[in-house]
Every structure is written in structure tokens, then in C-alpha cells.
């Protein structure tokens, strides 16, 4: 069964996303909404990892992927500056958050096949938050894009 590998992927993706939110929060402190919300969302990602713990305890977690890594999603280690830099950083977050979101969906599919109510319950609580994170990032980028791309120097 390959579910443990996907649980590992999910765990890692949530951890990477949490770290990246914190990175952006720190690097874009002059945008208070982004600063505070990224901190809140980082905590959400921490909680998602916590929520996975009992499931991981049952299935185990494989951190070594036997599929070769083609796309590297190591998270953000630095932030850019200026309006376009902000937009690019948010876009990077968006990619990471998408990876999290779709991985939850895959895990949900497996949970349904396994009729694992505990896992379904965990997915139910976390997946909607993950997709709201995506919607927030979209909302915020749509707001920032015209100004950054047209009016900013």
C-alpha cells in the first residue's frame, strides 16, 4: 500500500508551507494583512500536521519516496521586495498551497476507498482550510496585481 508514502508527502508539504508562510510574514512585515494572516495560516498548517499524527501512527509514514522527485518544492527561504516581489512571493506560496490541497484530495480518495472514518474526519477538517488558503492567496494576488504590474515603478 502506498498511502504511507502519500501521508509522508502531505506531512512534508504542510511543513514546507508552514515554513514558507512564516518566511513571507517576516519578509513582508510592511504589509500587515499579509504578515498577520501568514502567521495565522502557518499555525493552521502546524495543526494539520498534528491532526495527521494519529493516522500516521496507524499506517506509518514513508518519507523516502520511491518515485523520483522531478519537481522540487523546497519552500521559500528568502523573500523578494517591492510590489512585484510581493506578488511573486504570493504566487510561490500559491504553488505550495496547491500541492498541499491536491495531496489532501488524493489522501481523501484513498480514505474513501479504505472506508477509514478517522482519516475522512481529519481530511474533512483540514482540506477545507487548505482550499480557503488558496482562495485567500488568489483574492490577495488579484488585488495586488494591477497596481504592481501597471502603476508601480
Amino acid at each position, binding site marked *: 500500500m502506498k498511502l504511507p508514502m502519500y501521508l509522508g508527502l502531505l506531512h512534508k508539504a504542510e511543513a514546507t508551507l508552514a515554513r514558507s508562510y512564516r518566511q513571507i510574514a517576516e519578509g513582508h512585515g510592511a504589509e500587515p494583512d499579509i504578515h498577520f494572516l501568514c502567521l495565522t495560516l502557518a499555525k493552521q498548517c502546524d495543526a494539520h500536521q498534528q491532526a495527521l499524527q494519529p493516522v500516521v501512527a496507524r499506517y506509518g509514514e514513508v518519507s523516502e519516496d520511491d518515485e523520483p522527485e522531478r519537481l522540487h518544492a523546497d519552500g521559500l527561504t528568502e523573500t523578494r521586495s517591492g510590489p512585484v516581489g510581493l506578488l511573486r512571493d504570493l504566487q510561490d506560496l500559491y504553488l505550495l498551497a496547491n500541492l498541499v490541497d491536491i495531496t489532501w484530495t488524493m489522501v481523501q480518495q484513498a480514505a474513501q476507498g479504505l472506508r477509514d472514518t478517522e482519516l475522512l474526519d481529519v481530511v474533512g477538517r483540514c482540506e477545507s482550510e487548505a482550499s480557503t488558503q488558496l482562495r485567500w492567496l488568489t*483574492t490577495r494576488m*488579484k488585488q495586488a496585481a494591477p*497596481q*504592481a504590474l501597471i*502603476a508601480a515603478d
Partner: protein
Amino acid sequence: MVDRITDIWGTRTPFARGESWPVRVDQLLADGVGEADVDRWVQSACVLCSNGCGMDIAVKDGAMVGVRGRAVDAVNQGRLGPKGLLASWQGVATKERLTRPMIRENGRLVETDWDTAMERIVARSRSLLADKGPLSHAFYTSGQLFIEEYYALGVIGKGGIGTPHMDGNTRLCTATAAAAMKESFGSDGQPGCYTDIDECDALFLYGHNMAETQTVLWSRVLDRVTGPDRPAVVCVDPRETEVARLADVHLALKPGTNLALMHGLVRELFAHGWNDEDFVAHHTLNVEELSAAVQPWTPEEVARTCGVEADDVRRAAGIFGTSRRVVSTVLQGFYQSSQATASSCQVNNLHLLRGMIGRPGCGILQMNGQPTAQNNRECGADGDLPGFRNWENPDHVNELAALWNVDPQVIPHWAPPTHAMQIFRYAEQGSIGFLWISATNPAVSMPELPRIRKILASPGLFVVVQDLYMTETAQYADVVLPAAGWGEKTGTFTNASRTVHLSDQAVEPPGEARSDLDIFLDYSRRMDFRNKGGAPLLDWVGPEDAYRAWQDCSRGRPCDYTGISYSKLRGGSGIQWPCNEEHPGGTKRLYGDGIFPSNPDYCETYGHDLLTGATVGPQAFRAMAPAGRALFKTAPYSPPHEEPDADYPFRYTTGRTVYHFHTRTKTARSKPLNRAAPDAWVELSVSDAGRLGVAEGDIVSVRSRRGEIVVPARVGDIRSGTVFAPFHYGYWDECGSPDGRPRAANELTMTDWDPVSKQPVFKSAAVHVERVAAGAGPSAAPTTTASRPASAGSVPVTVGGPEAQAQETFAPEALPAGSAGTVSAGPVLGAAVPATTVGELS
């Protein structure tokens, strides 16, 4: 005669539930002017708070010389409060008014003529539009202008220039009221009305110090509370306000924890089965989500988080859950605090759960602060499209484009409209180069003033300021335009209960000052904004043209004005929208039929996630099939963003005093009001003051991570660990800048805002307090209200003196035969006055 500084709410006229509030006409004429001297009375309404009390202006020899409340007006039944009586005309008829335009030459502002000033604006506007396009332009307006002026500005900005960067100081004041109603019901629009106070069995005030913010509405409450069947009163406020003193339950929670408390109250309704299951089933959506979200919030958990007693939470919930008719009013204690929209939505949720909406005595009043804030929200001079249209709905955008005969592409609708805080951020970054500020004073009223001053002073930003006075903000302007004030121009505006009033011009503006409408129309003409047909975008000549255009724009929308003409507004009471062929007399309450404006084709918004502000979007909203049902919306509680710590151990909150409005540009020019509250202060609790070695009147330094104020201390009745500062005080009547004596409350506040309403969080920050010097006597804080000293008698009582004496006239038929109808202050006339509604007294 009654001293209305000491006796803020005037003489009581108690009445019972279901009776009409007795008429009491308040009048104050200038010293030496008798009623017989008045040449004429001109109809208007007060613009010194959101209550919008109907009043007439006394004119003698071409000057305003007094005011009296309009007995026929449903809002105030003749009454006026201290500000209305003492600062309406006194606040504008002064020698300090701006009378000529000014432009900056060699770094200094110098007087000039209108042509030169306007051409300078137009030249900058044109060159920026050519170089950078519409996103270089921003307009920051007010909650003080008239419908006609907002709508003109809305059309210019959205249909002429096409910039999304338009907002008002309404963002600081009522953005959350609008946001909460949009999220819960699908559109802005006050469900309740003031007569609900006459009908209720219980009254909840959430972060609403009504006694000081809307004094005439509070008179109405006092008259119910002193009447034969007193409604229960519940107050949520960290300070011992007049409201708190009168309350049956006072929940003096820690600032920043409103949502936790609200979760607890909602949970109690579920736990005790107090919900109206039938109403919930037929008229709402998402009750399961709400119930799950509040589950953890037992009264004990609330007590731990909010610092209140668990039993008080139970008692408050019990009153809400078991009273037949409950009125809720909400204001800045919620709107300017963390999780503002989510907390305010929980008030709506409580009413929806009990099915208490749209019926007499069951009103929700998501209040406004400013007199015309409602109109900024309606007319599109802020971050909304005119007529509560939905920027995400292409049909709504097309309707506006057709109405204005412009290309729909011009109207900014590709992203949420830019809120005030973001406008200032873009100005800080240099991508906005043109900022036109009308009738507001951000250099005192916005959070984190050191930053705001830097932005306004930045050389790349061209600032136009349009005002009555040389404000702190005007000092930074490149062009200053002198505006006509209240009584000097004609226009309409709408109070917090949807009541529309007409304010007729009584006198000429001073010098060369012009109405805000004339100024906007002049700009539009000079910029040569045209519609698709090549005709001028705005061809209005005067206010009534603008008003008729607005009526057209409002047709078929929730705020339908088509049945309210100028002539219908003359003579009688204000009229509540919607008013159209279907509702020719206006509409007292919304949603009596349980149908809400949530239909996706009709709604003003598809809504947001309340934790993050993420938009729901058209597809997901349609998929919910709201079909006229209200939505239960909420968010998980999260603690305030800046919590006290070892370096900044106190919670800091800001607010109002009854004697001032905004940054005191009008009220400080009224001698009695200014004497009553002449200078800034901070309030400390007795125990905190003791620990810090601070005595009444000692000078303290209050510091946050952003700045410092140095002001006298009032040792008062505030919650320990919390410090309060009034936000009215700036520097225009000092040396013009904070140097030497910083006293503006917003030196300390944070740049942070609610994710949905984008309203700044003024009411939670962490500060350090320390005594710096002995005082020269007690602080100047008023003794008559929440700022009273903890030990009574230690400080001289606040009095008004001869200039603050107002006349009170009670309903003539209620008085003994032979009485002239005028009584002096004294014992409560009280229950002796049978409740009657009478016609206009004159």
C-alpha cells in the same frame, strides 16, 4: 433652561413599551437672540453623529443664530444633544474658516484664486493619467458629505477616471457594519429602526457607548428605562460607561476578545434550545457549521479567555434567549477591534437563531458613527459600487455603465476596491501619486500617525485637501480648497436607521468657499470627462440634479430612493428607504417577510471567508443556492495580534467623549464643548495607578512600538490592565505638530485591519505606561461620563455655564392648561407626561 453640558441627555420623559416617545423640543439661540428676532427657520438635520436628528436652523440677518429640534421627525421627536445644540452652527460660523484656495509655492501654502488652484490640480491629474494611468489616482473622502457629493465623486472616480482607489474615512467607522450585513443578509441595509427601542423587552449594546456617541438615542433608552416596564439592558464594554452603569449585566471583557464572548452567547442559545427552529429551517443557511464552530465555547471557556464571570455570560445569554423582543446595537467596540466582522456577524446570528428580525422591538442596529457614512456606502465614493451593486457581478457593472453611458471596462471591477489602508500603502510605495482628501483629517484619525505624516509629506505625492479648516492634514497639502459647510449648501443624507433627511442652505458660505459638489463638478468639467456619446459625464447644475441622478441609480436596488423627492422631504419627518411605488411612505423595518437580499443576481456580495477575507466567488455562492435566505457566517476565535508582554504590559484602547466629534474641528470651536473637554488624557484603573505611583492629573508617558503620547492621567473606572485614550485630540490648536507634547491617541495604534471589512484595529495594542511628572491639578477629562474619576468629588464637576443653557418644550397638550409649554430644568416631568405624538410645534 437646562445646562446641556451637565445634563447631557436633558429632562426625562418616561414612557412604557409600545407607547410613542413623547415629544420634547430642544432649542438654543445665540446669546441675545430671542425667538421673535429670528428671520426664518430653515429645515435641516444634525451632522455631528450618525443619529441624524431633524433640526431647524434659525437665521437672522443672513447668519445662523440657533437651532431647534424638529418635533415631527421620527428620529428625535424634537430632541437635540449637546453637540447638535452647541456645535452645529457654532462649529462652522467662525473666523478661522478657510475662505480662499491655497497652493504650495516654495514649500509654503499661499492664497490664490480658484482658477489657479483648480488648474494646478487638473495639470497634475492629466499628466499622471497620461504617464501612469488611472491607478495613480486615489480619492479619500468622508462620512460628512451629502448624497449628491458622494455620487458625483463616485461617478467621476469610477466612470470618469476609472480608479479602484476610492474610499472614505467610513472605513475607520462603519465599514464593519456594512460588511457584517453583507455577509449575513447579502447586502448592506439596516434591518431595524429606532422605534424598536420603544417596543423592546431587552436591549443589548455591544461595544456601543451610546450614551456618549448618540446622545439622543440614549435619551430614548433612558426614557424607556425610567418608564413603567423597564427593558433589561446588557452591556459589552471594557469601560464603566454610562451604559454599563445602567446595565443589568455588564460584560467588561478584555479588549480584543469579542468573538470568544459572542461564540459563548451563541452556544448558550443552542445548548438551551432557545432557537426558533422553524425560522432557522426556512430562512437561513449553514446552521450546522455555526453550531459546530461555537461548541468549545462554554461559559467557563469564555470566562478564561475574556476575563468575565461565567455566570454573567449565562445571565446575558438567558436574557437574549428568553426575552420576547430584543434590540441589539453594535458600534466601535466591535468594529474597531480584532475579528470585527466575525464578531458583528455573531450579533446578526443571535437574532437569526431566534427569528428576531423585521418585527417591532426585534431590531438589529449595526450602527454608524458619522452622519452620512451610510451614503458613502450607498453612492460609491468608497469601496462599493453605487446602489449596493456587486463588483463581481458583470450585470451590475453593465447597469452602471448603461446609466452613465460609459464603457463597462472603465468601471474598476476586476478586483476588490482598494480600501483606505491600502491606498495609503500604495501612496507610501509611490504607485499612487495623486491623493484627493475631502472632509477628513487622516493626520489625526488614522492609525500609526508617525507613518501617516511621513506618507503625506512624501515629495512624490500630490495632495489635495478640501475642508472647512486648516487641519493637521491640510498642512501637508499641495492644494487646499475651501469648502462650504453645513447650513451653507443644500443636500440630503441618511442616518443609521435608513432615514433620509434634507438639509437646506440657510446662509452663504464665507469668502470664496464652495460646496463640495460644486468643486467636484468643476473638476469634472475642467478634466473634460465625457460619456460615450461625447456629452459631459456630469451635466448637473445643482444638488437637485445630482439627487435625481442618484434616485435613478438606486432604482430597484435595496436602497431605493425613487419615492423620496426633495419636496417630499420638506416639511415632515425624514423618510426611511426603500421608498418607491411599492412603499410610498418608506419602510420602517427590513426583512419582516424573512426574505433576504441574498439572491445571487441581486446581492451586493458573494461573501468572504471571515477568518482570511478570501472571496467566496460567484460559482460557490450560487452553488449554496441561498435563494433569499440569510447566511450564518463565523470564524474561529484568534487572539489579538499584539498582546501585552513584559515590555508593553498594558492593553491600549481608544474612543470618544460625548463633547467632541472626530478631530474636534467643529466641537473645539464651541466654547462650552471645548471647556468641557479641553485637552487629552489617558484613563488608568485605581489599582494600576497605585502600582505605577500615578495620582490623578499626573503626567504620564504612554508608549507603544510605534510612538508615544505624554498626557495627564485620569484615575478612573476602567478595567485593570487596560488604558484608554480619547482619539479627538491632535495638534491644530497646539503648535501644529506633536513636537514637545504628543497627545494624539493614534500615535500609538497599529497598522492592522479586519480581513473582511478592512476596518483598522484601533482598539487593541500593547503599551507601556510610566509617570513622568506631577500634574498641575486634576486632568481635564469630563466628570459626567465614562471618564469620571474613580473617587467622586475629587475633581471639579464638568459644567457648561450660560452658553450651554438650552430650552426644552414638551408636548403642549401634555402640560397643564395655561402653561406656555416651556419648562425649566428641574424635577423629572416624568410619568406625568402622557405619551402622545403631536404635530410640529412652532
